């Protein structure tokens, strides 16, 4: 097997698409996940826990189940399609929506835990120091929840890069549009192109290791800097 046989322009295309999907998804997740996590971290009744459970569903649900419902929701007869005027299935936007829902718990839960660990006190202190609620959120809550935010961002990104079932259900494998890395690997294996599969799979392995390592290093650094956040 020659090195040349490993070269495939589709490989780069799929890689770029995957990274683009993961980046967009992560940004969207942080934008909606942070306020959601804040809301969930505030004391509240039973139904807040119910919302928390719904958000956490993708952790336990088989991806194909989630993908199936998403496919229906994005299909030609769904209200969502009627609302948008076109269907989202088999489009990049559809993939982003699916990934956001699929990866939501991995972003929301660490941020929520960070906010909860902070307690109400820092916000009260900020309020008595003339900080408006938004100002206090920005200048106190967000920096104090930084470990949760970075953990959430990394997990959300990595989880989106690795997703397979949901993507396959709602995106299919349209090259350059919806054919992401994990699907490409599956294709290579189906076509017995083991060498190419090795390149991508190995790359994923290295990437995943780096992500986990980075996460642990970040947590350690914050742990040291924080020491005694609420004494």
């Amino acid at each position, binding site marked *: 097997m020659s090195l040349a046989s490993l070269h495939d322009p589709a490989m780069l295309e799929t890689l770029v698409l995957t990274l683009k999907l993961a980046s967009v998804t992560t940004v969207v997740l942080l934008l909606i996940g942070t306020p959601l996590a804040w809301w969930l971290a505030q004391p509240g009744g039973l139904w807040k826990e119910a919302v928390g459970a719904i958000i956490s569903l993708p952790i336990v649900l088989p991806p194909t189940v989630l993908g199936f419902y998403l496919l229906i929701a994005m299909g030609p007869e769904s209200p969502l399609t009627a609302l948008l005027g076109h269907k989202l299935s088999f489009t990049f936007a559809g993939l982003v929506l699916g990934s956001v829902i699929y990866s939501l718990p991995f972003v929301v839960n660490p941020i929520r835990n960070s906010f909860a660990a902070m307690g109400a006190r820092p916000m*009260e202190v900020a309020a008595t120091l003339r900080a408006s609620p938004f100002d206090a959120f920005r200048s106190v809550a967000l920096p*104090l929840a930084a470990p949760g935010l970075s953990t959430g961002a990394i997990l959300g990104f990595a989880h989106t890069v690795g997703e397979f079932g949901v993507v396959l259900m709602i995106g299919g494998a349209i090259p350059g549009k919806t054919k992401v890395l994990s699907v490409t690997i599956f294709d290579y294996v189906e076509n017995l192109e083991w060498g190419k599969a090795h390149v991508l799979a190995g790359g994923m392995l290295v990437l995943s290791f780096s992500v986990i390592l980075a996460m642990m290093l970040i947590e350690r650094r914050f742990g040291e800097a924080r*020491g005694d956040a*609420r004494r």
Partner: protein
Amino acid sequence: MISARFAGRLGSFDLDVAFEAPGRGVTALFGPSGCGKTSVLRCMAGLTRLPGGRLEVNGQIWQEGRKITPPHRRAVGYVFQEASLFAHLSVRENLRYGMKRARGPLRIGEAEVVGLLGIEALFSRPTAALSGGERQRVAIGRALLSQPELLLMDEPLSALDRISREEILPYLERLHATLEMPILFVSHDISEVERLADRLVLMEAGKVRAEGPLAQLLADPSLPLIHRPDLAAVIEGEVIAVDPAYGLSEIAVPGGVITVPGALGPAGTRRRLRIPASDVSLGRRAPLDTTILNALPATILDAAPDPDGHLTTVRLALGPAGNGALLLSRVSRKSWDRLGFAPGDRIVARLKATALAGRGRPAETAPERKMTDVPD
């Protein structure tokens, strides 16, 4: 001038308090744990909302029933039980957090606060490396720099060990002597109150039992405070002479002059004396041969036997005319009966000189940091 009234239900607890405090000086909210002191303070800051209430501070209405100004729109400084410094900010950034956001004219500057609290040396250290006492000093400085019209302190010493507490008390006494702004603090420790407060609001089970000047309430025979075992009178006076050879100071108080150990500063320095009732004995005449330094003419106001035992608590007014400072004495009931004292009698009160604790008001220099103040 502060006028507060809060009424309503907090959880399973009914709060119904109303009190006033002057626009200057220290008012203590005192009472047993769970009597609602902290809730009152939180209502004053706007952190807890009780729709049945009214709060006016220096002419501004902070609450009128359901119209409640949110905390960040009130010029209030709040010192929590635990220092609660922002862990992601340096000591200096913590200090400036409120200052940057303060509106209106700057009443107190950074240099002044840093000097008052002796926190300059802490600037270079991470907040996590500060001791409990140091953290609380930074927290007080941070609150002061937010330019409050009212400083609220919720048991600022209770989370500290005894040594840190002793370290921080002189700074609080200094704030008291220097600052124009009114301070309200919550405490369940009468010795803190004796050192810091001018006025007392006595709370009991969500209600105000009594309020008034400290010295008066401490000695009020109708209040439970009179029965505490470490009963003491608190008297304010002014240094009139210092005798360095013997290491004594003379302090003029209403109705007399009291000699106190220690050089307590130049003439004119205000000092607060705490005179335990058990260290005051009574006699008909001035003693002739005695080692006691202080024998002061006084008039008996009244006396009441302690509920359970052999002692009688006597209230006295210093001075032959019986119009001076209030002094307390606890003598055995037997002596009281034997000597046949009665209200209105002019007697001589003898004070053990060593029992007079000259608790400093304005310290001339910043108290030195103690070696024992180890970061925890």
